[in-house]
């Protein structure tokens, strides 16, 4: 395979006493993509992340980050991974700049280089004005943004964000999501752990849903939606001005259409591929007044709720 995998887990397992937190987890994240790790509280998201960083040892199985075993070579992994923990903290007595410079120092970044990187990172998260303020005076949202800057300082190949949007105002969330969406262009892979489905949907290319330590489903969002909720079919919704009898039967005869449900002005067509143009032709050709038609897009909520119900049962 040409493209390297940013993260690859093999039967990753972790338990605390009798409680299995992560259970034979297998998944991978490709390079330069934004991967959303979803799941309810206690699904094992943070534990999985900690194992990726080598901060927690797995009971069995392994994680590889860009080919490095996280348990055996944690330093090599930490050199290329930036991690923003859920409850990020800073040294309250130091200023924003000093906090970042300390991290740069820990990463063996030269003094000159670190100065430039700190300025750039603070600018990216919009904290340039507050750079000489002690972080003890920072609000929750400002700390969160400083946390992002803290991760960017290292210029990592992989960024792991654990609930990055908590505590941010809507504007801050937008800025952050834009920032995250722009990262793959710079060659950075992002792993985003979150409950905020809408935000995940906006920036992630692929998602994985974790429940009770197991990966319930994994893949790209649109593919997942079709597979999960419509058995891999397209759902096309057609709205006409007034109900017309017999139209449903005519549409059913179109090549590729599998099922048509008529409900007043609405027709719900299930098809193997995107047949909008053919259907439009048939509808208009039968003198029905077409108001609008669209391919039903599956929101992450649909996927999430469906898989949750399944795993709860």
């Amino acid at each position, binding site marked *: 395979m040409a493209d390297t995998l940013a993260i690859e887990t093999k039967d990753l397992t972790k338990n605390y006493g009798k409680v299995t937190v992560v259970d034979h987890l297998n998944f991978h994240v490709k390079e330069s993509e934004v991967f959303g790790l979803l799941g309810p509280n206690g699904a094992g998201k943070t534990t999985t992340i900690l194992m990726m960083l080598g901060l927690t040892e797995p009971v069995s199985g392994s994680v590889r980050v860009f080919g490095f075993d996280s348990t055996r070579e944690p*330093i090599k992994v930490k050199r290329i991974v930036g991690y923003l923990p859920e409850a990020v903290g800073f*040294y309250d007595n130091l200023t924003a700049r000093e906090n970042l410079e300390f991290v740069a120092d*820990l990463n063996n970044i030269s003094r000159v280089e670190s100065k430039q990187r700190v300025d750039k990172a603070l600018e990216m998260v919009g904290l340039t004005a507050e750079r000489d303020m002690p972080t003890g005076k920072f609000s929750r949202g400002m700390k969160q943004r400083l946390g992002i800057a803290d991760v960017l300082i290292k210029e990592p190949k992989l960024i792991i964000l654990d609930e990055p949007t908590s505590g941010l105002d809507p504007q801050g969330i937008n800025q952050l999501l834009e920032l995250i969406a722009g990262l793959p262009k710079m060659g950075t892979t992002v792993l985003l752990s979150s409950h905020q489905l809408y935000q995940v949907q906006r920036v992630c290319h692929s998602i994985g849903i974790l429940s009770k330590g197991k990966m319930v489903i994994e893949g790209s969002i649109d593919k997942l939606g079709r597979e999960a909720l419509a058995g891999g079919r397209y759902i096309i919704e057609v709205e006409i001005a007034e109900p017309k009898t017999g139209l449903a039967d005519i549409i059913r005869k179109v090549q590729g259409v599998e099922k048509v449900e008529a409900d007043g002005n609405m027709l719900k067509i299930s098809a193997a591929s995107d047949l909008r143009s053919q259907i439009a032709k048939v509808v208009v050709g039968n003198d029905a007044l077409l108001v609008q038609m669209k391919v039903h897009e599956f929101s992450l909520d649909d996927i999430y709720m469906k898989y949750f119900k399944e795993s709860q049962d």
Partner: protein
Amino acid sequence: MLAIIRKELADYFNSIRFLVLFLMVLVAGGCGLYAAQQGIRAALEQSQAVTEGGFIFLALFTSSWGGLPILTLAIAIIVPITGIVLGFDTINSERSGGTMSRLLAQPVYRDSVINGKFLAGIMAMALIVGTTILLVAGYGLRMIGVPPTAEEIIRLFLFLVIIIIYGAFWMGLAMLFSVVFRRAAGSLLIPIVIFLIFYFFWVFLGFGQAIAEAVAPIIAGTDVATQIQQAGLQQTIMRLSPSFIFQEAYIVLLVPMWKGLGAITYSDLAYILPNPLSLGQCLLVIWPHMVGLISLSAICFGISYIVFMKQEIRAT
């Protein structure tokens, strides 16, 4: 690790805590110096050091006057407190501040974190104690006008080394509790209580002596061998306290006229020469004490090291 030491030292130097500790040690040094100024003549005449051409400069550190404490005693009380205050929140403050997981996500070994903090603490303490002793020595020199001999300088230096080892023990103890306890209150209180028991109750108020005498009474009239044996046992019991070990060590170093640590019979007393114990012999006497103190610090640090390495690092 250098980055961590740098940061910790910078933190110490900017903190009010460090300033307060420094002032405390300086005040103790000043007090002791004042006591020495008042009492040094009497002390020297009493110990016949003047006539023996002995250790006049060292008497600065060991003379008392009225109710004022001897300089070394003041330092012996304050150094453990300094160690505890510098070490009690090294690890759990990182935890409660949420900086621990961020710090450990950087490419540093976990042991560099604890090593760096311990070393930075020792450096800060060495700076406080070293500066104070130098200041006291300097003012003392001005005061009495008798320069220290080479041997006295070596003895003072060794005294400094022992103080730092002793302080490192208390800092290691405080760090151990800072690894085990999540709250800073617990990790401050427990080492201080331990210090109070080992120093104030055991050594200062004489509880240790009382217990030792109860366990191994020296009964008058029994034969000499048994009495000496009992005295040895008493001393061993007293040495359960690290503060007592430290006290013995610095007395031997700074008061060369002191005659040994064990029991001396009256018949032997007649044969003792009224001259100071040479430096080499002093070192020989306190060697076990130094090893004991170093190993105590090493044990404290070692336990906290192991506990810290095995600890789970959860984000919350």
